[in-house]
C-alpha cells in the first residue's frame, strides 16, 4: 500500500475520442506509483492518484508522451501564488522588524552623543558585531542571493549596489573590531559603522515591503476581472430515461450544476434572480433585468427578453430565464477582456524607451562613480580621507535607485488600463494609451455611433379629429405586412404603445411610394408625397409642417383616409441620449469634433445640429472614409475615429487612434486601439481623459525617478561639500532610496481615484 497518496488534476492535450481516453488512462495506471487515473475527454483532464515518493509529475508526463499525447504539468493556481506572495511578505516584514530593532540598538550604542545614554554592553564593538551579523547575512541574504548569480552572468542590479555598499561598511567595521590598533596606526579613530550596514538593510527592506504592497494594487484590475467569473452553471439536461417511462417523462429536463469549464456551446442554462450569468449566450425563455456594470461600466440594469444576448459574469437581477450558451471558455467576452487587459499591461509605451536604455547602463555606471568617489575623496579629501572616501562610496552605492526608473511607466500603464477595463474602456496597448492623450480631432461615424442606427418614430401629428394613437394604430395595421425598415419602426412603436392592430384587407405595397389597404371599408394610403400626388390627396395645406419635419432630417410618412390627409408620422434614426453630452465633453477638452456620414448634406446637418457638431463630412462613401481621415491628418491634426468597429475597420486603422463603440466582438477589438464596451458616448471623453491622466502620471514618475538620481547621486558623491560642507550620510541615503520607489508606485496608484461617471 503506498504511503503518501496525492490526487492531482492534469491537462492532457491531443485527445479526440474515447480510445484516446483508454490509451492515456492505461499509460497513467501503468506508471509505477499510480494507484488510480481517470481521464475525462470533455474537459481534457486527468485526475491521477499517485504516491509522491515513488512517482513524480515528470514521470507521469513521460508516460503520456510515449503514447503520443502531452500531459501538462500542473501550474500553480492564482490562490497558491497569492498564498506564496503573502508568505514572502510576512518573512519580509519579520526581517524589517528584526533589522530595524537590532539596528536601533547598534545605533544607540554607537551614535556620538546618544551612545553616552546606552548600556555599556551596547557600546561593546563585539556585541555590535554579534547584533549586525544576522542582519547582514540573514536579512540581507536576498541581496547576496541576487548579486552572486548576477555577477556570474556579468550583470548587476539594485541588489548588487546594496550588497556592495553594506558589505563594505560591515567588513570595515568587523576589521575595526578585531584590529583597532591597525586603524589607530593609520591615524584614524577606530570606530565601526555597523549601524550603517544594518539600518541601510532594514530601511531598504522596509521600502521593498511597502513597494510590494503598493505594487499588488497596480494589478488589482486583472484579479477583479478574473474574480468576476462564475464558478458553476446550472445546465438543463435530459433526465435519464428508464423502462416503461412515458414519452413525456423521457422528455423531462433536469437541472444539473456543472463546473463552468464543462459548459459547452449549445447548452441550455437556467439563471435565477440574484445569480451570476455563467457564460455568453442568447435568451430562449423568460425575461429579466440584468446588471452589466461589471463589464460595461453602465450602472443602470438593462431589461432583456427572448432573443437578447446575455454576457457571462453579469448579474441577473429580477427574473428567471433560460438561455443557450453561444460562447464558452476563452471565447466569452470576459475572457476576451481579460486577455486584452493582460496584453495591454504587458506592452511597452514608447515613452518608456529612454528609461529602458538608461536602466541597462545604470548600475555599472553607478559602480564606476563609486570607484571615482573613493579615489577623489582619498586623494583630495580632508583627513581622515579613508573614512570620507569609504562613507561617500557607500552613500553613492546606496542612494542610486534604478527601480524607480524601471517602475515609472509600467505601474502607471497597469493602473491606467485597469481603471479603463473596470469602466468598459478596453485599451489595446500602452502605445494607444500614449497616443490618445495627443488627440485633438475626433471623427464620429454617424449611423450606429452618434445615432442609434435603427429608425424610430419621432413625431405623430394628427391633421383632423382622429387622435394620435388612432393614427399610429391605423398606420401600423396597414404596415404590418410590409418589410420596409420604416414600416418596422411604425409597427414597433405601436407595439410599444400596446396598441391592438386591426386586420387590413387588400394590402398592397407600391415600391417607391408606400402602401395601401382596406380597413373597415375605409381606403387607407400610407406613404410619401409621391403616393399622395398619385392618389390625388391634397397635401398643400400641410406643406410647411412637412418641410419642417424634413428639415430636421426626418422621413415623413403621410396617412390618408378615404383620400383625405389624416396624419403625419415622422421616422428618423434618432441620436443617442448620450450623444450631445458626449460631444460637449470632448469640446470642453478642446477637441474638435467632426461627423462623417454617407447621408446627404441636409440630413447630416440636421443630426449634427442636434448633437452640437460643427464640422460635417457628408455624402462620404464607406470606402472613402479612410481618405477623409488622411486629409484631416494632413492638416497636422492627431485624429481619433469613433465607429462601430465592424464596418469601419479601415477607417479605424487609418486614424491615429481607432475607437470602436458598443461592442466586444473580436473583429472590433482587433481593428480598434480602444474598445468601448458600453454604448455611452460620454466614455469617449473619459477614455481621452484617462489617457491624459495616465500620461501625466508617467511624466511625473519619470521626472521624479530621473531627477532623484541625477540630483542625489552627485550629492552622495560629495559635490556640495566644497561649497556648503554638506555630505550625505549613508543611512539618510537609504531612507531616500527606499522612499523613491515607493513614491513612484504610490503616484501611479493615484489615478485610481479617477472617477468615470456616466450618469452626470
Amino acid at each position, binding site marked *: 500500500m503506498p504511503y503518501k497518496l496525492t490526487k492531482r488534476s492534469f491537462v492532457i492535450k491531443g485527445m479526440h475520442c474515447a480510445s484516446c481516453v483508454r490509451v492515456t488512462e492505461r499509460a497513467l495506471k501503468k506508471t509505477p506509483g499510480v494507484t488510480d487515473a481517470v481521464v475525462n475527454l470533455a474537459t481534457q483532464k486527468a485526475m491521477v492518484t499517485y504516491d509522491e515518493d515513488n512517482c513524480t509529475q515528470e514521470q507521469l508526463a513521460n508516460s503520456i508522451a510515449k503514447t503520443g499525447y502531452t500531459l501538462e504539468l500542473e*501550474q500553480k493556481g492564482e490562490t497558491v501564488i497569492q498564498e506564496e506572495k503573502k508568505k514572502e511578505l510576512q518573512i519580509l516584514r519579520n526581517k524589517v522588524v528584526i533589522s530595524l530593532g537590532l539596528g536601533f540598538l547598534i545605533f544607540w550604542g554607537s551614535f556620538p552623543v546618544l551612545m553616552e545614554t546606552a548600556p555599556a554592553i551596547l557600546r561593546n564593538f563585539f556585541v555590535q558585531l554579534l547584533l549586525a551579523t544576522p542582519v547582514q547575512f540573514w536579512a540581507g541574504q536576498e541581496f547576496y542571493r541576487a548579486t552572486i548569480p548576477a555577477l556570474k552572468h556579468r550583470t548587476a542590479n539594485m541588489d548588487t549596489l546594496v550588497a556592495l555598499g553594506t558589505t563594505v561598511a560591515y567588513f570595515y567595521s568587523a576589521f575595526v573590531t578585531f584590529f583597532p590598533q591597525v586603524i589607530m596606526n593609520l591615524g584614524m579613530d577606530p570606530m565601526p559603522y555597523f549601524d550603517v550596514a544594518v539600518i541601510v538593510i532594514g530601511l531598504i527592506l522596509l521600502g521593498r515591503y511597502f513597494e510590494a504592497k503598493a505594487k499588488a494594487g497596480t494589478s488589482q484590475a486583472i484579479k477583479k476581472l478574473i474574480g468576476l467569473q462564475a464558478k458553476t452553471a446550472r445546465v438543463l439536461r435530459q433526465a435519464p430515461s428508464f423502462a416503461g417511462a412515458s414519452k413525456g417523462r423521457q422528455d423531462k429536463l433536469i437541472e444539473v450544476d456543472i463546473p463552468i469549464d464543462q459548459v459547452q456551446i449549445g447548452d441550455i442554462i437556467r439563471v435565477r434572480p440574484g445569480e451570476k450569468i455563467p457564460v455568453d449566450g442568447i435568451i430562449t425563455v423568460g425575461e429579466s433585468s440584468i446588471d452589466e456594470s461589471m463589464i460595461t461600466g453602465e450602472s443602470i440594469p438593462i431589461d432583456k427578453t427572448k432573443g437578447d444576448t446575455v454576457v457571462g459574469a453579469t448579474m441577473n437581477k429580477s427574473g428567471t430565464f433560460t438561455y443557450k450558451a453561444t460562447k464558452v471558455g476563452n471565447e466569452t467576452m470576459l475572457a476576451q477582456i481579460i486577455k486584452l487587459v493582460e496584453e495591454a499591461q*504587458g506592452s511597452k509605451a514608447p515613452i*518608456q524607451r529612454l*528609461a529602458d536604455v538608461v536602466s*541597462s547602463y*545604470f548600475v555599472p555606471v553607478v559602480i564606476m562613480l563609486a570607484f571615482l568617489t573613493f579615489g577623489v575623496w582619498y586623494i583630495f579629501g580632508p583627513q581622515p580621507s579613508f573614512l570620507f572616501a569609504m562613507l561617500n562610496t557607500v552613500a553613492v552605492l546606496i542612494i542610486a535607485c534604478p527601480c524607480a526608473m*524601471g*517602475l515609472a511607466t509600467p505601474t502607471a500603464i497597469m493602473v491606467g488600463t485597469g481603471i479603463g477595463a473596470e469602466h468598459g474602456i478596453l485599451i489595446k496597448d500602452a502605445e494607444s494609451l500614449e497616443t490618445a492623450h495627443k488627440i485633438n480631432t475626433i471623427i464620429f461615424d454617424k449611423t450606429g455611433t452618434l445615432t442609434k442606427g435603427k429608425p424610430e418614430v419621432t413625431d405623430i401629428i394628427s391633421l383632423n379629429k382622429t387622435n394620435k394613437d388612432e393614427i399610429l394604430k391605423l398606420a401600423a395595421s396597414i404596415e404590418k405586412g410590409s418589410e420596409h425598415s420604416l414600416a418596422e419602426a411604425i409597427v414597433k412603436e405601436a407595439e410599444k404603445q400596446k396598441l391592438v392592430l386591426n386586420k387590413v384587407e387588400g394590402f398592397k405595397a407600391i415600391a417607391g411610394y408606400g402602401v395601401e389597404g382596406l380597413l373597415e371599408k375605409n381606403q387607407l394610403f400610407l406613404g410619401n408625397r409621391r403616393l399622395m400626388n398619385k392618389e390625388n390627396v391634397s397635401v398643400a395645406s400641410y406643406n410647411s409642417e412637412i418641410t419642417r419635419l424634413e428639415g430636421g432630417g426626418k422621413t415623413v410618412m403621410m396617412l390618408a383616409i378615404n383620400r383625405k390627409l389624416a396624419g403625419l408620422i415622422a421616422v428618423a434614426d434618432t441620436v443617442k441620449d448620450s450623444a450631445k453630452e458626449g460631444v460637449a465633453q470632448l469640446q470642453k477638452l478642446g477637441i474638435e469634433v467632426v461627423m462623417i456620414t454617407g447621408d446627404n448634406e441636409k440630413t447630416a446637418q440636421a443630426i449634427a445640429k442636434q448633437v452640437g457638431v460643427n464640422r460635417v463630412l457628408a455624402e462620404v462613401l464607406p470606402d472613402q472614409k479612410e481618405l477623409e481621415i488622411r486629409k484631416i491628418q494632413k492638416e497636422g491634426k492627431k485624429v481619433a475615429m469613433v465607429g462601430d468597429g465592424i464596418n469601419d475597420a479601415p477607417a479605424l486603422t487609418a486614424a491615429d487612434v481607432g475607437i470602436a463603440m458598443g461592442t466586444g466582438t473580436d473583429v472590433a477589438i482587433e481593428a480598434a486601439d480602444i474598445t468601448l464596451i458600453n454604448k455611452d458616448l460620454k466614455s469617449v471623453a473619459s477614455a481621452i481623459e484617462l489617457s491624459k491622466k495616465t500620461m501625466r502620471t508617467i511624466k511625473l514618475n519619470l521626472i521624479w525617478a530621473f531627477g532623484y538620481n541625477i540630483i542625489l547621486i552627485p550629492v552622495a558623491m560629495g559635490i556640495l561639500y566644497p561649497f556648503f560642507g554638506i555630505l550625505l550620510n549613508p543611512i539618510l541615503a537609504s531612507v531616500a532610496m527606499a522612499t523613491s520607489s515607493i513614491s513612484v508606485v504610490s503616484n501611479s496608484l493615484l489615478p485610481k481615484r479617477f472617477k468615470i461617471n456616466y450618469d452626470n
Partner: protein
Amino acid sequence: MDKILVGLFSVAGMFFTYWFFLMKKEDVISVTDSVDITVEGGYSPNIISISLGKTIKINFFRKDPSSCLEEVVLGDFKIRKYLPLNQKITIEVTAKEKGEFAFTCGMGMFHGKIVVSD
C-alpha cells in the same frame, strides 16, 4: 605614494567595471522548437535566435528569489508574466517580423533578447 596607488585602483576599478559589465560577449542560442531559460541573476541563455514565422515555446524557470526577476516582460509581444519561484512557466512566441526584440525583468534591469532572422 598611497594616494597614487588608490588613484590607480580607482581608475582600474572603473575600467574593470566597464569591461566586466558592458563589454561581455553574448552567446546566441538558436531555437527551433522550445528553449529553457533559467532565471537566476539574469537570463540564461539571454539571447535566442529564431527563424521568421516560427512559433517557439520559451520555458522560464525562476530560481532567483529577487523580486526584480519575479516578472518577465516581452513588450513587443505584449506579454507580462509573473514567474513563481521554482516553477516552469511557458510562454509561446511567434516571430512575425524580423529584428531584435528585448525581454526584460519587470523593472527593466535584466535583459535578454529574441533575434528573429530569415
